[in-house]
């Protein structure tokens, strides 16, 4: 234990403490302000109350927007996972000519054509299809954006399922659909779980597309309503915003904890668009 070693240890812990503070301090607001009788922007020990929670549940749009978020995400996640599973299985097992080119093109597309770079045509398209203010339509747009990456990730998992399992199932007379449903997907379950969680978290936090495509306040998800709360009367509605932000964060935090516990946090490759 030389003096140099001691100094380095202290330096290490100071550095870690600073980094930890940088990441943790902004989050503390989410823990205190929702339950503070006089919520502000600063950090302080709250004067404990649940009246903000009551106010949030009485807000005309707060709970409804959370339900909208849930519907939007469930549809987008279900469509993404189901379509990606079918496509990944087929692309993994059948050697269509030009398949690799197709897969590379998909990967390229998903990173190049982002919601931001294509917002004008997407908006015009939905306008002309009469799908502006359609939650289902918006969910499909979100799913379309997530599908290429989902197929890519899932194909990796399906590739690793031994083909002999499928062959034995076929010998016993299973149809391709049964092989996929009863043999391949159960084995590729970690991959399916990854896609489920990944697409849910992505859709849950997606702001731009719902903001663009859902103009009616009653149909907006939480991502968009947060901003509306801020605009109300020009200043932030601090009674509702902290509680609302907390409620809006809980589902993804719970998912994060589940994933972290079951699989460790090792998302593969290029995730989170």
């Amino acid at each position, binding site marked *: 234990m030389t003096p140099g070693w001691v100094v380095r240890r202290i330096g290490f812990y100071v550095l870690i403490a600073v980094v930890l503070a940088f990441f943790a301090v902004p989050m503390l607001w989410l823990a205190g302000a929702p339950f503070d009788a006089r919520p502000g922007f600063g950090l302080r020990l709250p004067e404990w109350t649940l009246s903000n929670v009551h106010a949030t549940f009485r807000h005309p749009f707060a709970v409804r927007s959370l339900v909208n978020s849930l519907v939007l995400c469930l549809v987008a996640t279900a469509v993404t996972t189901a379509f990606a599973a079918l496509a990944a299985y087929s692309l993994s097992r059948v050697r269509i000519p030009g398949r690799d080119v197709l897969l590379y093109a998909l990967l*390229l*597309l998903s990173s*190049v054509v982002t919601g931001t770079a294509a917002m*004008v045509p997407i908006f015009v*398209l939905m306008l002309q299809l009469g799908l502006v203010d359609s939650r289902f339509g918006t969910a499909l747009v979100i799913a379309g954006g997530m599908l290429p990456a989902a197929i890519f990730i899932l194909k990796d998992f399906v590739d690793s399922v031994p083909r002999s399992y499928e062959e034995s199932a076929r010998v016993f007379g299973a149809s391709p659909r049964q092989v996929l449903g009863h043999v391949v997907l159960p084995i590729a379950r970690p991959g399916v779980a990854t896609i489920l969680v990944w697409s849910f978290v992505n859709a849950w936090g997606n702001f731009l597309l719902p903001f663009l495509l859902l103009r009616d306040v009653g149909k907006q998800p939480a991502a968009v309503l947060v901003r509306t709360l801020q605009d109300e009367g020009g200043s932030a509605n601090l009674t509702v915003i902290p509680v609302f932000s907390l409620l809006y964060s809980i589902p*993804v935090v719970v998912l994060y904890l589940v994933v972290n516990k079951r699989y460790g946090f090792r998302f593969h490759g290029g995730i989170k668009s």
Partner: protein
Amino acid sequence: MRAADRDSAGLGTARAIAFVAPALLLIGLFLVFPALWTLYIGITDYQLTGPSAAAPSVVGLENFTTALADPLFTNSLWLTALFVLGSAVIGQNALGFALAWLLRRARLGPRRTVEGVVLLAWILPGPVVAYLWFAVLSRDGGTLGLLLGQPGTAWLVEYPMVSLIVFNTWRGTAFSMLLYTSALAAVPPSHLETARLAGASGRQTVRDVVLPHIRGHVLTNTLLISLWTANDFTPFLLTAGGPNHRSEVLPVLIYRQALESGQLGYASAMSLLLLVGNLVVALVYLRLLRRRS
């Protein structure tokens, strides 16, 4: 045997196509078609309202020349470059690597704590994170002002780009940290041992042993997070491009030109320039991927 090799699941061509079709339909409708349509809208004078909403006319490359001469557009280009450089290339990249490096031999408790908090910052929804930083940077008793003894400072107004860069570094560091943690795990311990025996300092070890070994990861990570940052729309939630266009990064400018000013053609031309930028980065990325594999 050949046929079985080509189709080992016994799917049959028709069923294989049927399995891929739903996904391709959505991708075609909401990614490929919009990308192609931007090409067309970008060369028209299409507007959200007014006469050219009903019958837009083709104006050729006029939108592009206008954009390149438009101080608002060049301003956005510079701000976007600054945003990417500051928050992705330097902020997330360097901080993510530093964390992975510092924590690689830390005890499990401290390590889990730091990783958990950094990951939480990543997993929280963007609109909520914008609020968290709104609170930190607010002039009305915001945490930063209190910490620095300057409670009256409106950070978002006075230093909008610095605010955005710190905000995005906070949000995105986890990805780089995860990527570098697994990259560092793959560096052969014998290399590090040799460096230690040769008396190399930590900095020398990183520069001469570690970085050359994980160069592929560094390039991949930098390109990916740069792409995401250049296309990130959350700056809109924190500063909305203000004050006075001082934080109006390209995605925010495109949104305002399209939906607030209704200049759909002009905004599409700007989108195309962003698309081309994305394409260049993505092609470099694919090349690197192929070379590595």
